[in-house]
């Protein structure tokens, strides 16, 4: 770890004033500190936002919820309103990391966690995301955790967040405070940027922006929500692929579907063509198989992620079977119905 200045503030304007290119916000620190110890991130100044007021509560706003950026993953997953109305979110969070990490990890930090590409973590390796312009050692290397879609020639890394995948399917948005004090909200699907030729820039945030909250719209009545995460061990591992599914079946036909996919792209992935294929149809294995084919038609950008195509296809089928009642919930997988 390199030495750094530590700026702790109880006032958000003051915190924002301390931010900039060479500074980093620290919230739970569960990702940032690991990266600093191995010098993948070397901020000159840390701005501790954990003393800021008003960022630690989950507040109702009519049928919607406003989740403060400092709400811990444990707090959020356990909140009774979340468990009743947005169980998908609770399940996704609990499918991630460990209890100890979730106790520290925050909502804002989770959205902004960095990729798990092993070359990003190893300073002896070329990596455009860590050190722009150095190249991408993952290409031609061990690439099992890389992305399938949305990559660029400069970077093939995947975003690992389970929570962000669920929030995307739930059509949440991110509340951001600019240094000027201006507040804006950005929908989840516009919050992240593809890697393009600058994979080091991952979101629409400016260096002195602060994420202040996540806004959750009211749950859709009559839908069933399910989160299906497949990983290399039963717990405490990042997803190989994950599927967040919110589906409403009415009169034997799929009336609504909102799907998002995790760990297969530089950000939570969406593909509306799949939803369009499903809506209006009666749930069947054949329909789901076709949806899976459509979702995974593009070739893998790295030979080591070729397996993610069949795995994603099959995981989508499993999630849809559960969400539409074609199969019982798998053990360890939770599906909950939102009352109509």
């Amino acid at each position: 770890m390199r030495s750094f200045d530590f700026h702790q503030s109880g006032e958000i304007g003051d915190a924002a004033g301390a931010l900039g290119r060479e500074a980093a916000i620290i919230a739970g620190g569960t990702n940032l500190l690991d990266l600093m110890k191995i010098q993948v991130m070397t901020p000159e100044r840390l701005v501790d936002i954990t003393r800021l007021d008003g960022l630690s509560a989950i507040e109702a706003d009519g049928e919607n919820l406003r989740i403060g950026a400092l709400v811990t993953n444990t707090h959020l997953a356990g909140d009774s309103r979340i468990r009743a109305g947005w169980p998908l979110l609770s399940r996704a969070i609990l499918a991630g990391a460990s209890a100890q990490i979730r106790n520290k990890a925050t909502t804002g930090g989770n959205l902004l966690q960095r990729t798990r590409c092993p070359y990003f973590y190893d300073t002896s390796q070329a990596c455009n995301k860590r050190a722009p312009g150095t190249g991408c050692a993952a290409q031609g290397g061990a690439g099992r955790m890389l992305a399938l879609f949305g990559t660029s020639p400069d970077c093939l890394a995947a975003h690992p967040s389970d929570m962000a995948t669920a929030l995307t399917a739930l059509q949440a948005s991110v509340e951001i405070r600019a240094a000027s004090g201006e507040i804006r909200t950005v929908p989840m699907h516009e919050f992240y940027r593809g890697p393009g030729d600058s994979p080091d820039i991952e979101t629409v945030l400016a260096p002195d922006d602060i994420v202040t909250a996540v806004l959750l719209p009211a749950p859709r009545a009559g839908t069933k929500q399910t989160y299906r995460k497949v990983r290399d061990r039963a717990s405490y591992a990042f997803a190989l692929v994950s599927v967040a599914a919110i589906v409403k079946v009415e009169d034997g036909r799929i009336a609504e579907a909102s799907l998002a996919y995790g760990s297969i792209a530089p950000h939570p992935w969406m593909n509306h063509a799949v939803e369009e294929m499903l809506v209006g149809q009666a749930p069947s294995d054949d329909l789901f198989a076709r949806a899976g084919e459509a979702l995974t038609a593009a070739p893998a950008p790295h030979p080591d992620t070729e397996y993610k195509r069949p795995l994603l296809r099959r995981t989508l089928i499993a999630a849809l079977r559960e969400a539409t009642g074609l199969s019982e919930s798998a053990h360890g997988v939770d599906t909950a119905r939102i009352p109509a």
Partner: protein
Amino acid sequence: MKDFTMDEAQPRLLDQTGMGIIGKPLPRRDGKLKVSGTAPYAADTPHPARMAHGVLVRATIPRGRVAGFDRAGIADIDGVIEIVTDARLSRNPTQGMAGEATVQPGDEVHYHGQPIALVVAETFEAARDAAQRLTVRYETTDPGGVSPDKPKDTEIADPETAGDFDAAWGAAEVKVDLEFTTPSHVSAAMEPHAALAEWDGDRVTLKGSQQMLRFNRNELADSLGIDPSKVRILSPYIGGGFGSKLGIGPEAVAACVAAEKLGRPVRVVMPRQTVFDSVLRRSETRQRVRFGATRDGRITAISHDDTVSNLDGESFAEPTTQASQFLYGADGLSFTQTVARISATPAGSVRAPGEAVGMLAFEAALDELADKLGMDPVDLRLKNLPEKNPMTGQPYSARRLADCLTEGAAAFGWADRGAPGSRREGDWLIGMGVASAARSNMLVKSASRVRLHGAHAVVETDMTDIGTGSYTILGQIAAEMLGLPVDAVEVRLGDTDLPGASGSGGSFGASSAGSSTFLAAKEIRERIAEKLGCAADDLTLNDGIARGGNIEKPLAELVDTEIVAEASIEGGKTAESHFSAGFGAHFAEVAVNEWTGEVRVRRMLGVMAMGRILNEKTARSQAIGGMVWGLGSALTEDMQMDRRDGHVVTRDLANYHVASHLDVPSDMVVTFLEERDDMANPIQSKGIGELGISGAGAAIFNAIAHATGARLHDYPATPDKVIAALEARG
């Protein structure tokens, strides 16, 4: 010192002493300290005054020479004392029981990740920062091969054979010829490697995390070029070893060298990534297994050929076929090993070297033979248990493998398992698998001292307790022998000033150090008998009272001056006349998700016969721990290396997946069958921990095949491989 050689079966004295302490499930003596975080590990011992901190610098090229260091980049770091390079620094840990220095590469680089220097600073933070930022100038040379697919050299050993394999194979009516792979494994002990060195004149004291002090002292002395009498090593508490601390590590040598150069104590702790980079890994393996049989299921031909890798200069080669050579009989057997030389993190002993991965292939291949024969896999195994070791002709000292298989099958409900692919619960396919367990048993030279004063005894040996229970069982043995409550026996371990024990490795520690402790206590019994005036055979010691020849005296009175006895044991004629191994049977039930390929182990049973059980609780915990590692090797563990420069890609415990709690079923049962191995040692015990792992993963693999009807050949069975097999099956 009483020297004893194991030349013939010994009386079962521990069955006569009558204290009831042997075998008792007593909790671990060090348990509270460890779970409360108060056991003083090497890095946690009180820091001596003026102690400096060292962090190893790693090479980031696979082969070449260090031409120099550029300090400009670290000039702004406060408190950096020195970049220590030295001809005595070692390239990697020594192999287990080497007893001498390993390769000391000077300025040469032999693999990506090799420690090439030690940065010493006033604080750990400064040392780590400088070690990371230091610019190293290299002259690179062609590594000549960094992955076993494209080695720079291969060495093929002469086949080990019995009978005529080619003839038997040619004539076999039913055959399987299969290829398996297993990936590299890392030991993944919780406590990273650490060392604290302090010189006093020409003597050095090392507080380290080491498994085998008697050997480590010589290794360290040889590395430093000094006499072993000038080296003292202390390792009273160790946070797991799994083979990674068998030899002296580069951190220990570097700490001693730096402490000497700077004239102040130096502590070196390996960050987790360094443990992955430079501690001996288990080699990946490629294995070809062939079984030939008659149509009625008599195995006639067995062959198991393997390719493993290592860095040049390392003599170790994963003994993959160890158990394949003594489990089943055949008319012809043949075993050939190929070692691929690569410039990559060197390989060494990792929990149950040989059996842990060899049996993954061997026992899964045997299952495929059972399939082909249309035979129950338990019956096939039972039918082919040989009279004698098929390679050496030695009789087995004690082998209850048949009982383990049959009793295990009955307890597990094996008969109800149904046809492959016939059980399903929702989207989950359910199946059962079996595998034999076997692990060769060893007796390693070991010495102990026991002191008795009044009704209080002390056991002293440089034996280590790496989390296995040495403190506890050595106390139990002495207490049982001396007729004392366990609380009246103090146990001092982990100090090279004490008599040299076997150390912890190869599951031989409990039996070897246990035997020397037993013998020293036995010697004390003889002296007590003398004092009492009775024959040693007539002596009974119970609850602090000595009785014999109609005399009865409290020890407190009888032993008014301290009696000290030291004894040592080593293997002898019984190791030639008989073949000793632990045996068992593993059963597993799994659920495989037919869509996602996730595998969940629902229950496991290990039935094991492993000689006398010294402590039912520590033994069980060892056996379960072994089975959990077996589960990890079947489903999750995979150390990945980059094919271009050989560097380790999975460098932390988030990416190297040991089994998590949720992977381990709550229904995990271990049953011990009563056994005494009279040929093994005078306490009739055998090794335990490694038997738990040996074969366990194969039972899980076989259960996956039974659940799905699809066979896998590449470990571990991660979802990608399972769905590929499901799709190939159709």
